[in-house]
């Protein structure tokens, strides 16, 4: 089969499945699940077949294939419905369909008791369609269309249990926050189109590579505006507030959308359009005070700040899903920071490995929640390791991968990011700190929830989840362990950083287990050693505080108000609440004043009053006295005669 056909099949099957479930099989639960899972499974197989054509695991530099249909032609603007197939999109296809398949399978078990089973799978399929659209998009407009579709399916899935007010609110919050970022994204797309006359990735890249100043003074502004799309979708500071609340959705949704795939879309977009950000700094005159700051600087710092803030917040959360949510935020910040440090390959590598282990962690958390009848507070858990053996060992694998312990996949990707940040000492220090914090909060989660003795009667009654939920955990655990050895990094380096010196000899491409294992120490020893040290330090700290299975968190007593700030997420929600309320109130006050004094006062009552006063004055003339009228008539007659005759 031709690769284009395969790509169209991968993209359109989930859409067909969503349509079929919605229209035909809402009542047949098993059939709906089978349709949805089948669509993803076929997509996964097709993605694997595509690697033969594109060699995602042995790529040829700079080659890509375009399958496009002319969609829109308005004046000078032409937009294709195009699929761009290259090693990068192929890799993402495999990741999205692979992790997606695991989570679809898991959902069969997790959602088994839910009344809206079919609706859930229809939404999942719609999401897969949108996400694959982003991955395959060949131009900005098409990407934006699927970008919004992803936002909609995310909204539907966060608010899946819409009868709960908190879920409905979280869905609304996620959608509106995303809209803020998307507005900037759209402005950026329009700006790029206005300056270059095209929205096609390949054409923009060609233009910008031949002339890096083609965007003129708008280069950096355009990059930052497009980056706003990432800030919304990948939940970067200051638009990060929606992601933790999105945990109101069912746990498979959290794993698929808010950990592995959708939130990664922003990072993928940064890598896909990296040529747009990697331009010399140029600001228009009115923003000249920002001179010298390039788009990549801003991206790197936003990523770094997100990573640090989120890691600090994660330290004091007590909801198992929220800890993972803040950890996701923090890791997304890492990826964005790596791209900001001009290493899109490092960011993308972390994206892929993170998808494996974070999906694994979320599904593990889901398994725990399922076993404990929807108890999510880790301080009511404890001793789970004895009751849920498979969940526990897979969770531990995910934790080790997230903490960056060799030889788990997270070690290689995190090391890549630390190495990327080495050129900026401040960010490098921040990244090391975040790496330590990551280990600390994950170890805390493990010690409190899985180790020790049960704190609650639920735990004693807990039983391991069914096989349909455990097998995805096992497979994802294998991917989390081996992800660093599949040559993903080498592929990404070849695609995204062909000029990089170590690209050809990059670790993971060839060589045995030990060669791969030691490679990070070879090419960036400082980053690898400090990263490992931070991991060890974080673990030691967590061990000393939590290994004795305390009944309560000992940290607030030691940190005082800082712990409260961490627990309350640095009061960002409250700050936004106040900001929104203040602006809202100010706007309302102005509108009220205009309405009260200008519209109702001047226009309505003014007209009324004017007519009323005129009426009252003219009324004096109407005395009701016959003789007055007669006199006035005569006087009028005299006046007329006077005018006529003289």
């Amino acid at each position: 089969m031709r690769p284009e056909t395969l790509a169209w099949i991968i993209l359109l099957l989930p859409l067909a499945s969503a349509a079929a479930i919605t229209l035909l099989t809402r009542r047949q639960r098993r059939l709906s699940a089978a349709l949805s899972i089948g669509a993803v499974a076929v997509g996964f197989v097709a993605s694997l077949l595509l690697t033969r054509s594109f060699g995602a695991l042995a790529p040829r530099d700079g080659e890509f294939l375009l399958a496009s249909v002319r969609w829109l032609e308005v004046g000078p603007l032409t937009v294709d419905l195009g699929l761009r197939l290259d090693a990068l999109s192929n890799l993402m296809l495999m990741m999205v369909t692979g992790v997606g398949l695991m989570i679809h399978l898991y959902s069969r078990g997790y959602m088994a008791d839910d009344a809206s089973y079919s609706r859930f799978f229809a939404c999942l399929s719609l999401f897969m369609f949108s996400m694959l659209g982003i991955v395959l998009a060949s131009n900005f407009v098409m990407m934006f269309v699927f970008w919004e579709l992803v936002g909609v399916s995310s909204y539907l899935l966060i608010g899946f249990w819409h009868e709960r007010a908190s879920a409905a609110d979280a869905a609304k919050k996620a959608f509106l926050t995303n809209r803020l970022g998307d507005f900037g994204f759209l402005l950026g797309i329009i700006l790029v189109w206005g300056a270059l006359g095209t929205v096609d990735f390949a054409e923009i890249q060609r233009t910008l590579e031949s002339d890096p100043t083609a965007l003129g003074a708008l280069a950096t502004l355009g990059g930052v505006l497009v980056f706003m799309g990432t800030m919304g979708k990948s939940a970067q500071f200051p638009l990060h507030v929606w992601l933790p609340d999105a945990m109101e959705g069912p746990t498979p949704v959290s794993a698929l959308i808010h950990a592995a795939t959708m939130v990664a879309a922003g990072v993928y977009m940064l890598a896909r359009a990296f040529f747009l950000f990697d331009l010399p700094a140029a600001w228009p005159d009115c923003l000249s005070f920002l001179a010298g700051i390039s788009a990549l600087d801003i991206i790197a710092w936003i990523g770094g700040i997100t990573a640090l803030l989120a890691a600090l917040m994660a330290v004091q959360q007590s909801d198992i899903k929220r800890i993972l949510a803040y950890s996701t935020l923090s890791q997304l910040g890492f990826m964005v920071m790596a791209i900001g440090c001009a290493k899109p390959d490092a960011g993308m590598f972390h994206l892929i490995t993170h998808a494996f282990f974070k999906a694994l962690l979320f599904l593990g958390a889901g398994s725990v929640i399922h076993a404990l009848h929807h108890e999510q507070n880790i301080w009511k858990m404890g001793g789970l390791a004895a009751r849920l053996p498979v969940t526990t060992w897979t969770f531990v694998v995910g934790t080790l991968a997230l903490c960056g312990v060799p030889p788990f996949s997270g070690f290689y990707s995190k090391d890549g990011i630390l190495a990327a940040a080495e050129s900026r000492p401040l960010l490098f220090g921040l990244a090391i700190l975040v790496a330590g914090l990551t280990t600390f909060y994950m170890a805390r989660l493990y010690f409190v929830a899985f180790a020790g003795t049960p704190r609650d009667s639920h735990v004693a009654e807990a039983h391991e989840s069914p096989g349909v939920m455990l097998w995805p955990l096992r497979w994802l655990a294998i991917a989390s362990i081996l992800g660093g050895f599949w040559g993903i990094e080498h592929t990404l380096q070849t695609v995204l950083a062909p000029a990089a010196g170590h690209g050809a000899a990059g670790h993971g491409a060839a060589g045995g287990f030990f060669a791969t294992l030691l490679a990070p120490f070879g090419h960036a020893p400082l980053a690898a050693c400090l990263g490992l040290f931070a991991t060890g330090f974080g673990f030691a700290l967590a061990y000393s505080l939590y290994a004795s299975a305390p009944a309560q968190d000992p940290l607030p007593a030691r940190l005082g108000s800082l712990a409260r700030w961490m627990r309350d997420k640095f009061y960002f929600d409250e700050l936004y609440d106040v900001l929104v309320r203040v602006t809202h109130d100010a706007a309302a006050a102005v509108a009220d004043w205009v309405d009260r004094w200008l519209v109702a006062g001047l226009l309505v009552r003014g007209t009324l009053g004017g007519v009323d006063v005129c009426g009252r004055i003219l009324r004096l003339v109407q005395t009701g006295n016959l003789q007055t009228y007669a006199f006035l008539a005569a006087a009028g007659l005299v006046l007329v005669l006077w005018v006529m005759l003289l």
Partner: protein
Amino acid sequence: MTGMHIGLEHYLFVSAALFCLGLLGVVLRRNLLVLYMGLELMLNASNLALVAFSRFLNHLNGQVMVFFIITVAAAEVAVGLALIVALYRKRQTAHVEDLASLKL
């Protein structure tokens, strides 16, 4: 009495004087009946002017007009007096300042 020629101006002067007297009566007097007399006076003043014009301009239209006016005035008096009597019976007054119910 020679040298004293009575011309159109004299007639018109008398007519104007009568008209003004009638108007003053209408505007100033309080009693409706007297007011009515003033009205008749004004009509007759205009009759006088018309007749004078007819005489001095050798044109009969003026006199025809006068007949019409006399006829209409007779009819008007009949209706008007009946109205005044009816009004008096209803309100026990024939003074104009008491009849101001047109005022809001």
